[in-house]
């Protein structure tokens, strides 16, 4: 059978960034579809769903992560956000780039060919999530029932809000004007089910409001690309002549489920209201702030830490109820005349254990010099994390501590040491590939890593001493004459940097019996220096 010429362009696969499915241009048949196999809409009272769909989301998110001057400088030039795939596919571009003909779906090379001045930004999923959360927090103004549809969509349940704000048009106007102020331009659609409102929003150039009785008629006209199903399924549907959602709804359910899976059939059912839909509502991040005014002035940090510790129990209760942990606590000590002494308690890993925090606080406060008596203080936490669930062993609960317990203990120890000895006092030492002994190791800021990579040293490397002197010590060569140095090992490297070394290393034994590692510095007229001790 000869295939008919198709009345549309082949669709590009839906972008993970949620690029608008513009490429698929569908000619909707003007004849009204035969009415019989369409399921009758079961009207569910109570819900009005409003969906927001944001265009060019990767670009907006990438820009939102930049600082204001950077953004202003970038926005005027051609700009595109590229994916991390092999082609570096353009996910979104600004208008300046679009004028050169750059479109989403082009490869980076194609974009450069169109305009060599195009500035490329990498896609950052974290900033997309962050921006969507920000938008969701903003939507808390209109309704408490906001649910996220990553990467770039939101659904709001607005039945109550319609009454509050005085009509559907008022709500839509309010949302549009609010987002316009923030430089965002969402596509808005409203309908009686969340799923269908999302589909409609993806194609809505102007806000669309669909009455429940017109729902099926309206979504039937949508091209199947709004479903954002995997490319292979979409292509398969197009091959058997399904171009619109209406075509899909008219197919026999059993066969359709076999071809595209029950999951997708259920999605269709939810969209037309045949099945109820459960959506998770977005909860704004928790904040904690506890200002305390003192009845009397406190001059000593000892008493102060006792009082703050008592107050930390409130935070403990707050955290325990919500199963949250904190990794930073800000304590502000207020003095007269609006002066404030900030105390930051930073933790290496999130904890909900205020007993541990109290210990840190005591160490930290002991180092604080109070400039004036304290009249009030406040405890605040800006960021909280879900407490990790620790699985205990069923048997042998008293046996050796688990990995997690061990890492946790190390993190606590590190915090305790740092709070008294200073942030930079505890370092972790590690090897580095360099033949110069003083550069063959590096001191990192200590942290609790889970695994340490096994270093492999050159087999031929001679024994190195346990101790390295921080500053090599000069030794008079007369002393060495009797000592009969053993060696040499030549180290000559680093001509490319500032630490060029030409040295001959020897092992010598001192009269007292200590075994030292000395070198002759050929760059400094053969001076002898002690560099290490074989401990």
């Amino acid at each position, binding site marked *: 059978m000869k295939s008919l010429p198709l009345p549309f362009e082949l669709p590009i696969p839906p972008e993970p960034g949620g690029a608008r499915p513009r490429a698929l241009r569908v000619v909707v048949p003007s004849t009204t579809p035969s009415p019989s196999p369409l399921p009758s809409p079961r009207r569910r009272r109570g819900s009005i769903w409003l969906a927001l769909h944001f265009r060019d989301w990767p670009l907006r998110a990438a820009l939102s992560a930049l600082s204001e001057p950077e953004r202003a400088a970038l926005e005027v030039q051609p700009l595109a956000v590229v994916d991390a795939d092999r082609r570096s596919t353009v996910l979104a571009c600004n208008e300046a780039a679009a004028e050169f003909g750059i479109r989403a779906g082009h490869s980076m090379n194609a974009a450069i060919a169109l305009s060599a001045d195009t500035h490329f930004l990498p896609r950052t999923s974290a900033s997309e999530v962050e921006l969507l959360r920000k938008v969701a927090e903003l939507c808390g103004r209109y309704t408490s029932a906001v649910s996220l549809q990553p990467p770039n969509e939101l659904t709001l349940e607005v039945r109550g809000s319609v009454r509050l704000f005085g009509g559907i048009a008022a709500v839509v106007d309010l949302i549009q004007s609010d987002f316009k102020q923030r430089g965002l331009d969402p596509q808005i659609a409203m309908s009686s089910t969340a799923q269908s409102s999302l589909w409609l929003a993806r194609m809505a150039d102007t806000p669309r409001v669909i009455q429940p009785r017109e729902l099926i008629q309206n979504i039937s006209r949508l091209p199947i690309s709004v479903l954002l199903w995997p490319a292979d399924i979409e292509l398969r549907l197009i091959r058997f002549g399904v171009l619109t959602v209406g075509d899909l709804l008219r197919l026999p359910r059993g066969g359709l489920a076999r071809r595209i899976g029950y999951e997708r059939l259920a999605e269709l059912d939810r969209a037309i209201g045949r099945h109820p839909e459960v959506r998770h509502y977005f909860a704004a991040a928790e904040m904690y702030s506890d200002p305390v005014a003192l009845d009397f002035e406190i001059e000593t940090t000892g008493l102060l830490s006792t009082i703050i510790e008592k107050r930390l129990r409130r935070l403990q209760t707050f955290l325990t109820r919500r199963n949250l942990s904190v990794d930073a606590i800000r304590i502000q000590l207020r003095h007269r005349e609006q002066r404030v002494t900030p105390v930051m308690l930073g933790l290496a890993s999130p904890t909900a254990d205020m007993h541990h925090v109290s210990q840190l606080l005591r160490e930290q406060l002991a180092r604080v010099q109070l400039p004036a008596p304290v009249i009030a203080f406040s405890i605040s936490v800006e960021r909280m994390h879900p407490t990790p669930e620790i699985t205990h062993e069923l048997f042998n609960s008293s046996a*050796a*501590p*688990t*990995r997690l317990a*061990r*890492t946790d*203990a*190390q993190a*606590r*120890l*590190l915090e*305790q*040491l740092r709070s*008294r*000895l200073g942030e930079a*006092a*505890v*370092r*972790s*030492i*590690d*090897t*580095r590939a360099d033949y110069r*002994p003083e550069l*063959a*190791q*590096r*001191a990192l800021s*200590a942290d609790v*890593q*889970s*695994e*340490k990579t*096994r*270093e492999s*040293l050159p087999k031929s*490397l*001679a*024994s*190195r*001493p*346990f*101790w*390295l*002197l*921080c500053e090599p010590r000069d030794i008079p060569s007369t002393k060495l004459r009797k000592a009969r140095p*053993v060696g040499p090992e030549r180290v000559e490297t680093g001509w490319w940097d500032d630490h060029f070394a030409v040295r001959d290393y020897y*092992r010598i*034994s*001192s009269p*007292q*019996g*200590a*075994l*030292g590692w000395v070198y002759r510095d050929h760059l400094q007229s053969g001076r002898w220096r002690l560099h*290490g*001790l*074989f*401990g």
Partner: protein
Amino acid sequence: MIDPLQIPHVWRAQSLRSQASATEPTGFDALDAALGGGWPVPALLEVLTDLYGIGELQVILPLLRALTKRTPAPPLIAWLNPPHQPNAVALVQHGLGGCHHWLAMNLSSQDTLWAMERALKADACSAVLAWAPTVDTASLRRLRLAVSTKGVYGILYRPTSVAVQASPAHVRLQLSSHSSLLQVKVLKAQGRKPSDLVLDVDRARLLDMRR
């Protein structure tokens, strides 16, 4: 002459350890014999030395290797206030490469002892090494208590001038050099007599002309 062993309630000190409490091999046969099987488990070890570079780390190296292998990953050794910079390459060469090393240098004696006690109590390290010139008996007692309750080895390096002072440490060793060998004076080992011994700490190899 009266044989003291005939008197009731008098017994030899060696038999105190007859309960055969667990020991950890030291890696040196002579030292194992002097300590009655090895290091006690766990123990606060006191190592007295004025001179560095005589093998003062080699003595405890087999212990550190054994401890870091046994603990649930990731093993960790704390170095508190060492006199010089520990060399990461040498640590790898001596089999401590798979282990994290935390280093805090230039601490006061007071801070060192505080940090050591914290590290022992935290139950986070495989072993804690500390160098403290001045230590009072009260903090030593606290260290011993922390070692006993948490079961972590604490190794404290002190100058030899304190050899005459009493100490609650489980084991006290005084080190000095004896040609290319290490002379160890066991000042205190619970349930054992003080003794003198000489250990070969693998130094002749380093001074061999052929290598």
